[in-house]
């Protein structure tokens, strides 16, 4: 220990302190401050860039999902439209069928009615003609029957006979 103290070189101590402090001050100004500033600036830059990239990625993701949403909606709409069209088609077919049915029924009914009308008319005409014919025949019969006096008297008598109950 005594030897250590004896060998202690205060000159070296003085120069070491002086030169070290000078080195410290010089390096602080010309090296450490610019280096640390540059490094932290670069680190900030990297951090920012990474943040930006993440943001862009998120935006992309959002955009993609939005696109998918739109596509999905479009698909749904198409489905809806197709379904509507199908419904309309079916309805039209059904309607047409119904109408045709109705029309047919109506026509059949009309035909039936007109047939019955015609029939009625024909029957009436037939009746009329039969009546006319009957009257004509009757006229001719009567004319022949009533051509002599005896015949007229015989008929009256017969009728009177029939009347007397």
């Amino acid at each position: 220990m005594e030897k250590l103290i004896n060998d202690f070189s205060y000159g070296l101590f003085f120069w070491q302190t002086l030169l070290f402090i000078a080195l410290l001050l010089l390096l602080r100004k010309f090296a450490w401050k610019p280096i640390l500033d540059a490094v932290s600036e670069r680190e900030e830059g990297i951090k920012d860039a990474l943040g930006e990239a993440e943001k862009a990625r998120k935006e992309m993701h959002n955009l993609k999902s939005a696109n998918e949403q739109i596509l999905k909606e479009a698909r749904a709409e198409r489905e809806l439209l197709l379904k509507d069209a199908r419904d309309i088609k079916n309805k039209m077919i059904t309607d047409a069928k119904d109408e045709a049915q109705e029309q047919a029924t109506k026509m059949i009914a009309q035909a039936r009615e007109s047939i019955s009308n015609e029939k009625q008319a024909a029957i009436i005409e037939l009746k009329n003609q039969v009546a006319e014919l009957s009257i004509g025949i009757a006229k001719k019969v009567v004319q022949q029957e009533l051509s002599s006096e005896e015949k007229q008297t015989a008929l009256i008598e017969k009728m009177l006979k029939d009347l007397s109950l």
Partner: protein
Amino acid sequence: MHKFYSHYYLSDMQKNILRNFLLISVFLLSLNSYSQHETDPQKPEAKKDLKTKIKEDIRHHVKDSYYFDFNADSETGVYHGFSLPVILIDNGLHVFMSSKFDHGKKVAEVNGNYYKLYHNKIYKTDASGTLSLNEHLHPTNAKPLDFSITKGVFGILIVSLIIFLIFSNLAKSYAKNGAIPTGVGRFFEPLVIYIRDEVAIPSIGEKKYKRYMPFLLTVFFFIWFSNLIGITPFGMNITGNLAVTAALAILTFLITQFSSNKNYWKHIFWMPGVPVPMKIILAPIELLGVFIKPFALMMRLYANIFAGHIVIYSILGLLFVFKSYIGGTLSFGLALVISILELLVAILQAYIFTMLSALYFGFATEEHSEEH
């Protein structure tokens, strides 16, 4: 708190490993001395000289020096390197190159004063350079105030310059290249971010860490680079100097005290949540802890790096003691392994110092709401 203790364990483990290597090296050394004794009994003195020389070289290396020597042969007095400026305050400022001492062989005359370098220390002498030694063989001559640019100071300057160039360039490269680092900055930027995210923010907190970042970063890179430069063949020992680690630890201590809040002092003098007798017992312990913490910082760094240098140099010294293919290869391999370990220790110690400093700052600025 967990992290806090785990570092102690780590550094203890580190020390243990180093100690083991030291023991192994001593064991190998003793083995060799026996074998040499058997084969070469008539020349024990030369062998002792070599060992003493290695010992002296190691001691010389780990100490600060007035010269920047790459290679030295103290026997022939041939030194390869260059001299550094000596700055003395002794009735005025004296500045001269250390070559004037000629490694202690000459008396340097400056402005009418005479100085002599003796055992790596400068003493004031008369014109002939007489040193009066006491019973411990220590000179009793006066020592001038010494603010020389020694090898250590030179190393600090080089490390500071390297750090400043690397990081000011890194700072500039951001502006040029759109906030992306280029070149070596690619390697150092993650370390800066690591200190911020794993050391400063968890220890001090998101709100206050920014104020301490310059100190933590500077201290981390300074210690790391100083440790690394110590492993190079230039043999500079910066952080293995108590003066250097003391300066760093005192800065941590001062920053801790100046940024401390009421809550910090309350935890020291009147620990909340414990009975009154405990409060009284804890207060002096906690107060002592305030000084022990930076002291431990200083000693840990110093001891680790100092020990590392000694171990590497001892094992390298074995090369010259063995003087055989097997021993040489072994000690070379061992030195290589320990050098790699030292690379790890270099960054680990820098990390521990920074981490603990950050923790102390965290304790000092902790808010009352964070009760523990």
